[in-house]
C-alpha cells in the first residue's frame, strides 16, 4: 500500500494543474482524427523539459489516458475514430447518436472508460511492485532476450505483415547503433554530420509519428471534411451511470479483456476494443441489437480501451521494456529526466513512480467529469480542416525537435525519418516496431556485450544465451509470437491492423 503515501503529491497546485491541462488537452487532441495518442504524447514531450520528472510524467500520463477516451467523441458524433482504439466505439456509438442519443452514448462511453481505466491502473499499482521484485533476478542474457521480445512481439502482432514488421524492427535496431560505440568508441554508420552523435530518441519519435500523419493529410488534397456533427441533447448523468452498472456483463468483459490485452506487449488498444466488442456481442442475449446503436457495444469497447492503458505500462516500469509505442514515448519522457525505469525504479524514485501512477488514477475520474463537458468543444475541434492541422503539427514537430538540444541536426533527422516512414507505411511497414527497435536497441546491445564478456570468462556465448529456464522461456515466447502471427496471417484471420480497421470502418455504410 506504499502508493497511498504519495497520494497527496497529486494534489499540489502545480501537479493538479498539469493533470487538468493534460486531461482537458488530451480530450480535445484525442477527438481530433489523425492525432493518435502516441503522436499527441510525442509532441508534448518538449513541453516537459522545464518540468521536473514527476510533473512531466503527470502531464504525459494524463494526455495518454484522455486522448484514448477523447477519441470516442469524434467516433460517436462524427463516425470518425479519433484514435485507432476507438474504432469499435463507432459501431454502436454513432448509431446511437443518429437516433438522437448522442449525449447518452458519450456519457456511457466516459463512465465506462473511467471504470475500465481505474481497474487498469489498480492492476498497474498491484502488479508492478511484484514484477519489479521478480525482475531483480534478470541478468544480461535475460534482459537481452526481453529487449528482442519487445521488438519481435510488436513487429509480429502490430503489423499487417509479420516479415515487414520484423524488418521494421531490424531497421529500428540498426538506427540505434548509429553514432559512436559505447565501449570501443568506434564510429558506426555515420554517413552525415547530423547523426554523428547518434539518433536522439525524442526527435526520432516526433518524426516517426507526426510527419507521416502530416503527409497523409496532404494526400487528401483540398477536400473538406464532409462529416456531419450530430447535436448533443441533454441526458441525466445518473441514468447513464446506472445503465453502465446494469450492463455489468459488457462492462466486465470490456474491463477484463482490456486489462489482459494491455499486459501483452505489442497488442494495442484498437485490438482491445474490437476483441471486447466481439466477445460482448457473442455473450449477449441481445446480440442482434449490436451495430444498431446498442449501449453494450459502447460500454464494452470503451471500458476495454481505457482498461488497457494502465497494464500497458507494467512492462515499462518493471523491466524497462515499453510494451506499446505510447509506452515507448513515455520511456523517452523518463530518459530525458535521467530516470531509467526497471527493477530499482521504485527503490530509487518512489516519489516519481507512485505520484505518476496515482495521477493516472485521479486522471481517470477527471477525464470522466470533464469529458462530458468538453465533448461539444472537442467535436468542433475535430472539424478543423486538414490543412490547418497539418501545418500546426509540422510546426510543432520542427520546434519540438529543435528544442531538445537546440540542434538543426535533430530537425533534419526528424524530417528525414518521418518522410521515410510515410513511404514505408504505404508499403506495409509499421512505425511501432521501428520505434521499439530504436529504443530497445541500446538495451539489447549493452546486455549482449555484457553477456558476451561474462560468457567469455565463464562458458561459451551459446551456453550463456541459450540455456537456463528463463532464457528458454523468453526465447520460446519470441518464437511463439512469430509463429502465432504467421499462422494467423496464413489463415487470414488475424486481428486487423489500425490501417485495415480504419479502412474497413470507413467502408461500412
Amino acid at each position, binding site marked *: 500500500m506504499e502508493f497511498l503515501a504519495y497520494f497527496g503529491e497529486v494534489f499540489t497546485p502545480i501537479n493538479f494543474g498539469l493533470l487538468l491541462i493534460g486531461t482537458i488537452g488530451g480530450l480535445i487532441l484525442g477527438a481530433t482524427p489523425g492525432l493518435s495518442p502516441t503522436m499527441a504524447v510525442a509532441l508534448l514531450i*518538449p*513541453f516537459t523539459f*522545464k518540468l521536473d520528472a514527476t510533473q512531466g510524467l503527470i502531464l504525459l500520463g494524463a494526455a495518454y489516458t484522455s486522448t484514448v477516451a477523447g477519441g470516442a467523441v469524434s467516433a460517436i458524433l462524427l463516425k470518425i475514430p479519433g484514435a485507432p482504439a476507438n474504432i469499435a466505439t463507432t459501431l454502436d456509438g454513432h448509431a446511437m447518436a443518429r437516433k438522437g442519443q448522442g449525449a447518452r452514448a458519450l456519457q456511457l462511453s466516459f463512465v465506462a472508460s473511467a471504470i475500465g481505466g481505474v481497474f487498469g491502473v489498480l492492476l498497474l499499482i498491484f502488479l508492478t511492485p511484484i514484477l519489479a521484485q521478480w525482475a531483480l533476478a534478470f541478468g544480461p542474457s535475460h534482459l537481452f532476450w526481453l529487449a528482442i521480445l519487445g521488438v519481435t512481439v510488436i513487429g509480429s502482432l502490430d503489423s*499487417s*505483415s509479420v*516479415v*515487414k514488421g*520484423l*524488418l521494421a524492427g*531490424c*531497421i529500428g*535496431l*540498426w538506427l540505434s*547503433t548509429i553514432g559512436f*560505440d559505447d*565501449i*570501443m568508441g*568506434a564510429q*558506426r*554508420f555515420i554517413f552525415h554530420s547530423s547523426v554523428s552523435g547518434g539518433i536522439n530518441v525524442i526527435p526520432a519519435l516526433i518524426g516517426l509519428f507526426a510527419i507521416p500523419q*502530416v*503527409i497523409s*493529410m*496532404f*494526400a*487528401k*488534397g*483540398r*477536400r*473538406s471534411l464532409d462529416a456531419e456533427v450530430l447535436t448533443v441533447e441533454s441526458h441525466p448523468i445518473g441514468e447513464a451511470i446506472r445503465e453502465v452498472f446494469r450492463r455489468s456483463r459488457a462492462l466486465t468483459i470490456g474491463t477484463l479483456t482490456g486489462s489482459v490485452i494491455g499486459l501483452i506487449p505489442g497488442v494495442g488498444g484498437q485490438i482491445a476494443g474490437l476483441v471486447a466488442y466481439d466477445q460482448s456481442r457473442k455473450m449477449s442475449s441481445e446480440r442482434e441489437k449490436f451495430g444498431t446503436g446498442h449501449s453494450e457495444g459502447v460500454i464494452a469497447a470503451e471500458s476495454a480501451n481505457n482498461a488497457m492503458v494502465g497494464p500497458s505500462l507494467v512492462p515499462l516500469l518493471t523491466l524497462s521494456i515499453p510494451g506499446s509505442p505510447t509506452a515507448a514515448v513515455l520511456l523517452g519522457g523518463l530518459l530525458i529526466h535521467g530516470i531509467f525505469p526497471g527493477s530499482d525504479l521504485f527503490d530509487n524514485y518512489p516519489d516519481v513512480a507512485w505520484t505518476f501512477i496515482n495521477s493516472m488514477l485521479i486522471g481517470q475520474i477527471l477525464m470522466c467529469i470533464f469529458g462530458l463537458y468538453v465533448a461539444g468543444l472537442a467535436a468542433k475541434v475535430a472539424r478543423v*480542416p*486538414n*490543412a*490547418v492541422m*497539418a*501545418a500546426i503539427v*509540422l*510546426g*510543432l514537430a*520542427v*520546434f519540438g525537435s*529543435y*528544442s531538445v538540444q*537546440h540542434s*538543426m541536426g535533430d*530537425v*533534419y533527422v526528424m*524530417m528525414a525519418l518521418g*518522410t521515410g516512414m510515410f*513511404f514505408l507505411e*504505404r*508499403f*506495409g*511497414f509499421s512505425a511501432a516496431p521501428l520505434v521499439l527497435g530504436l529504443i530497445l536497441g541500446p538495451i*539489447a*546491445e549493452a546486455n*549482449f*556485450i555484457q553477456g*558476451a564478456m561474462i560468457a567469455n570468462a565463464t562458458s561459451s556465448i551459446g551456453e550463456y544465451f541459450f540455456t537456463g529456464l528463463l532464457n528458454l522461456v523468453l526465447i520460446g515466447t519470441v518464437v511463439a509470437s512469430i509463429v502465432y502471427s504467421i499462422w494467423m496471417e496464413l489463415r487470414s484471420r488475424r486481428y486487423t491492423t489500425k*490501417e485495415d480497421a480504419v479502412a474497413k470502418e470507413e467502408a461500412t455504410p
Partner: protein
Amino acid sequence: MTDLPRSQHIVASGLVAAVGIWVAYVSYTSEPARAFLFPRIISTVFVALALWTFGKALLGRTKVGIGLTASAVANILPGLVVSLVFVFWAADGLGFYTASAITFFILLSLYDPAPHHEVKSWIKRAIITAGFVVVMYLLFAMLLNVFTPREILF
C-alpha cells in the same frame, strides 16, 4: 495481391534491401570488429528479411501496403516540397518564425478547401497564420526559452 503495380513494391522493397546490404557490408568490413558485433547480427537478419520481401515483390506476391496512386502523389508533392524546403533550408536560413509563417501560409493556401477567389478566405488564412506564429512564439520562446536561429527580418 494489392491492386498496385508490382513495380512499386519492387522499387520499395529493393531500396530497403539495398540499405540492408549496405549495413551488412559496413558491419562485416569495418574495424574494430568487436564494435560491430551487434550490428553484424542485426544486419544478417535485416538482409535475410529484406531479400525475402524483395523476392516476394518480384514474384508479385506482396499482400500488404496501399502504395501510392497518381492522385495521392499529386496531392502530396507540393506540400512535401514546401515542408522539405522549410526544414532543410528556410528554418535555418530565414529564421524559425519567419520560415514558419511563410510555410504555414503556403500550406493553408495549397490545402485549405475554402475558395481562392474570395478575399475572405485569404484574410482568414492570414489571421490563422499570424495566430499560429504568436502561439509558437509564446510557447517556445517565452515559456520554454528555446533560442532559435537568428531571424532574417528581426
